[in-house]
């Protein structure tokens, strides 16, 4: 299948936060120094009430983007047109700058598992997902952002690495990528590959947005829980992402154990500080090292990493 001619990306938005109901009133009352907010699409696919009331209030003051979990882009049943219609209407009503969902499947045969289930990294999956993304982009009339998910299993059927799979889908469908740096780290630990290999393999032309988030470390594996501050290893990877991808759109994604808004603003400001330092001084400048000096180095097995890539 031929690659499409890449279109222009959306204008960059800067440093944002996920909009959470715990912060609605704070955001409206205090207008915090956040460049934009990302909303969880499904929370607003309702007819009225508090969620939509506050959403429209926030939309008056901040750029918004939509992040969904239910597109089920990897499912082998037809796309849910009712869902897509609701999404399209919401996007228009809040003038959302763009829409993202996950490179995964969330259910099949009429049952929704409500989980971001990984796909096998195969040519069959690529063909299937590219066709589905094209259908969605045609329906929405805009480019979709697809996010890499955290995963805990690998399929024997996989024919390539996750980053090759992601790149290929982005190239063929000309969708944009939402790179979740925490998800790269989580999967790197769970599948024993070097996250920098992943990051450095991604085509910068396709990347629109980044997520930063926390996780729960169980020693031998990591669960992507989004209920903790961003850990130092992920900050280190983030610095590498800033170095590689330059000016782009970053945000902190917290979905559980929601802290006061001020704590997330502190975290966001740390992201700004690292980005400014990397952009002006370069990743190897002592100032960056000073910021990151306490970050743990991720232990990886070169043999296992190359094996995973070759499967």
């Amino acid at each position, binding site marked *: 299948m031929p690659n499409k001619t890449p279109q222009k990306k959306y204008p960059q938005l800067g440093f944002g936060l996920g909009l959470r109901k715990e912060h609605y009133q704070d955001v409206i009352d205090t207008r915090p120094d956040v460049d934009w907010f990302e909303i969880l699409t499904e929370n607003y696919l309702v*007819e009225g009430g*508090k969620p939509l009331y506050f959403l429209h209030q926030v939309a008056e003051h901040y750029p918004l983007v939509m992040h969904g979990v239910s597109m089920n882009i990897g499912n082998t049943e037809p796309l849910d047109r009712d869902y897509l219609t609701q999404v399209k209407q919401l996007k228009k009503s809040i003038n959302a700058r763009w829409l993202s969902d996950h490179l995964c499947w969330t259910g099949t045969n009429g049952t929704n598992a*409500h*989980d971001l289930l990984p796909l096998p990294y195969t040519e069959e999956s690529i063909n299937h997902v590219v066709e589905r993304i094209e259908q969605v982009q045609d329906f929405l009339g805009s480019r979709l952002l697809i996010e890499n998910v955290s995963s*805990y*299993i690998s399929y024997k059927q996989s024919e390539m690495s996750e980053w090759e799979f992601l790149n290929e889908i982005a190239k063929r469908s000309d969708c944009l990528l939402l790179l979740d740096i925490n998800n790269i780290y989580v999967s790197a630990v769970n599948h024993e590959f070097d996250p920098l290999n992943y990051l450095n393999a991604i085509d910068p032309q396709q990347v629109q947005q980044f997520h930063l988030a926390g996780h729960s470390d169980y020693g031998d594996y990591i*669960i992507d829980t989004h209920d903790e501050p961003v850990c130092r290893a992920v900050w280190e990877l983030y610095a590498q992402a800033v170095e590689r991808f330059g000016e782009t759109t970053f945000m902190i994604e917290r979905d559980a154990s929601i802290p006061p808004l001020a704590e997330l603003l502190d975290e966001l400001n740390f992201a700004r500080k690292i980005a400014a330092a990397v952009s002006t001084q370069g990743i190897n400048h002592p100032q960056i090292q000073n910021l990151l000096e306490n970050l743990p180095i991720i232990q990886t097995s070169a043999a296992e990493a190359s094996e995973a890539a070759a499967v």
Partner: protein
Amino acid sequence: MNSSKSQPDLKELQRQMLAWLKAHDPVIKESVTGTEKVPADLRLDIYANAYRYRLIEALEDTFPALNTLLGDDDFFNMGLRYIERYPSQHFSLRFFGHRLADFLAAEDGFKEQKVLSEMAQFEWLLRATFDAAAQPRLSLEDLQNIAPEQWPELTFSFHPSLQRINLSFNVPQLWRAIEQEQPPIDIVEQEYPAGWVIWRRDLRTWYRSMDVDEAWAMDTMQEGENFATICAGVCEWIDEQHAPTRVAGFIQNWINEGLICSVK
């Protein structure tokens, strides 16, 4: 993978994975690799556990008072049975509990305690009220322009957030005590079911009980019947000469409470 079998295609692989999540069907194990540190079984368990915990969390979020009535362990086990009986079919977790009241009314171990099903029904309607559509309300001034001779034919439409429920138990009182973390109150079954109305106004959810004639009038008006029909119907409870005043009083209260959106 058994070499005599062909590799499952994507559709079949997804079917196998879902069968693992729902019923621990082990066939997916043939397609999953593990590592020395984290074997395939543990990896698959992460997904199977997440599947159940996420759905039960959604139930906890929608049915907090039911959770308190049952206790955490029994609520969790109830949730497991509900997931098995009614797997989620909607794209949003918001709608996962829509059959819980029916489930509790029908299943052994729960149907004997009818208060559980009533509480589930009450909490489900609270959620429905919370994010129902917004719509402008009718004011008493709007009624003043209507000529008296038009009144018998008038029909009224209610706010989309309005929900009606008849309850045999003191469910709203139980819910309130639990929600406000007050000392537990006794579960009481009434001699006759009482009519309750739930609605939203100014982003807040309200509920109150109704006399039997008011509940009947509201239900009948929701079905599209006009003022004259309602007046005739309430004569089952009061004498004919007082019926129009009684029904007009209902309507005045409903307008003051923000329950009515239009008249025609």
